[in-house]
């Protein structure tokens, strides 16, 4: 009937209508606001599942391919955090349920060498953190340096790092770049590891908490071979090609769909799973003791 044709036109309109057409729709057909906003917030996996999976995900396929080092690091983190079947490992220390790795979207390198003071490697980095949702709370953040170095594996390395964050203060007309900076040195043994993690949590927390999604950083790293403690003379610089660092964020996603360890522990405490005793044929299946899936009984 003409009426149903009108309705079906409206429904097809809903499926392809851009946002602004929604207002013409019959109120019953309008998605509740929260649902639309909620849908936009969904991580890609849940979006594609809510699109019944038949959506050709090419449109959302990653436009930029990540670096192979970054991919290798995250695969290693996955192996440490989950079993082969993808079940999260239940180790207490691991409170995060989300880890995001960002590679700098642009960097302008200033590279100058001053052999006496070691190989200063300074670089301006811009990280775009748009993928971090409002429900993801920062637990820890590190700058991840990977070393391409000809340094003998067993040597120890001492690095001094000078970090400054440039915030563009858009409130004022002149928009001076306010910068917070810290300097710190770290010492680590470059054994099998090809990574050095510089903890910048306290530094970034205020920015991420205030929803800064573009972090502009200048990082100067000076690395020398040897260990200051053993006051071995810090010999000449390591001629290492420092790859611009990635930014790693360990987050606690507080959304419904995310897995909350403490919640599952609490859930298990609330209704402990009854021990699965196989029902002996003598136990009356209808008595309270028989409370369990009939598979057990059948077995």
């Amino acid at each position, binding site marked *: 009937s003409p009426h149903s044709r009108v309705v079906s036109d409206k429904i097809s309109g809903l499926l392809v209508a851009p946002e602004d057409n929604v207002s013409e729709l019959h109120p019953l057909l309008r998605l509740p606001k929260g649902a639309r906003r909620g849908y936009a917030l969904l991580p890609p996996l849940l979006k594609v599942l809510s699109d019944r999976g038949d959506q050709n995900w090419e449109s959302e396929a990653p436009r930029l391919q990540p670096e192979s080092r970054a991919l290798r690091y995250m695969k290693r983190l996955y192996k440490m955090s989950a079993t082969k079947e993808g079940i*999260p490992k239940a180790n207490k220390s691991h409170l995060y349920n989300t880890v995001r790795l960002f590679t700098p979207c642009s960097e302008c390198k200033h590279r100058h060498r001053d052999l006496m003071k070691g190989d200063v490697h300074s670089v301006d980095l811009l990280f775009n953190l748009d993928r971090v949702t409002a429900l993801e709370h920062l637990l820890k953040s590190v700058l991840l340096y990977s070393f391409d170095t000809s340094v003998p594996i067993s040597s120890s390395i001492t690095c001094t790092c000078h970090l400054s964050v440039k915030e563009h203060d858009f409130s004022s007309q002149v928009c001076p770049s306010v910068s917070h900076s810290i300097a710190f040195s770290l010492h680590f043994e470059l054994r099998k590891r090809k990574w050095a993690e510089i903890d910048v949590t306290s530094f970034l927390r205020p920015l991420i908490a205030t929803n800064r999604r573009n972090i502009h950083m200048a990082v100067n790293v000076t690395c020398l071979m040897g260990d200051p403690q053993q006051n071995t003379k810090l010999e000449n610089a390591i001629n290492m090609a420092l790859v611009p660092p990635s930014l790693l964020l360990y987050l606690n996603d507080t959304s419904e769909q995310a897995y909350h360890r403490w919640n599952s522990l609490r859930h298990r405490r609330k209704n402990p799973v009854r021990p699965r005793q196989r029902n002996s044929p003598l136990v009356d299946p209808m008595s309270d003791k028989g409370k369990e899936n009939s598979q057990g009984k059948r077995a």
Partner: protein
Amino acid sequence: SRQRRAENLKEAPATPPYNLSEYFKQFLFPQNECELHNFRLSFSQLKWDKWIIAPHRYSPQYCKGDCPRVVGHRYGSPVHTMVQNIIYEKLDSSVPKPSCVPAEYSPLSVLTIEPDGSIVYKEYEDMIATKCTCR
């Protein structure tokens, strides 16, 4: 009475010897009772392996089968399930029988590449069915 019994026996057709355990089985539980079934998929089948790096395979499992009439104590089902069954059988067959659905789940860790090229490790709740119930 002996004569009457003899007459009855003559009339009654000789019933084939019944396998008693088969006979009682139909009362104990229905053949394809509600239970957990295995299902494994790989993200390459869905052509999602371009952006889902790990795990390669995923076993969501599923629940399938008939719900026996007296389910109160077998599946941890609430009493309402039996009430719904009685409504279906005695009052209104348009009310659906209780269904075989998952009762418990376990989470899944997924490593994906986001559209902007960043990489994310995420743990999702309720991604693998681990137990079934009738509701």
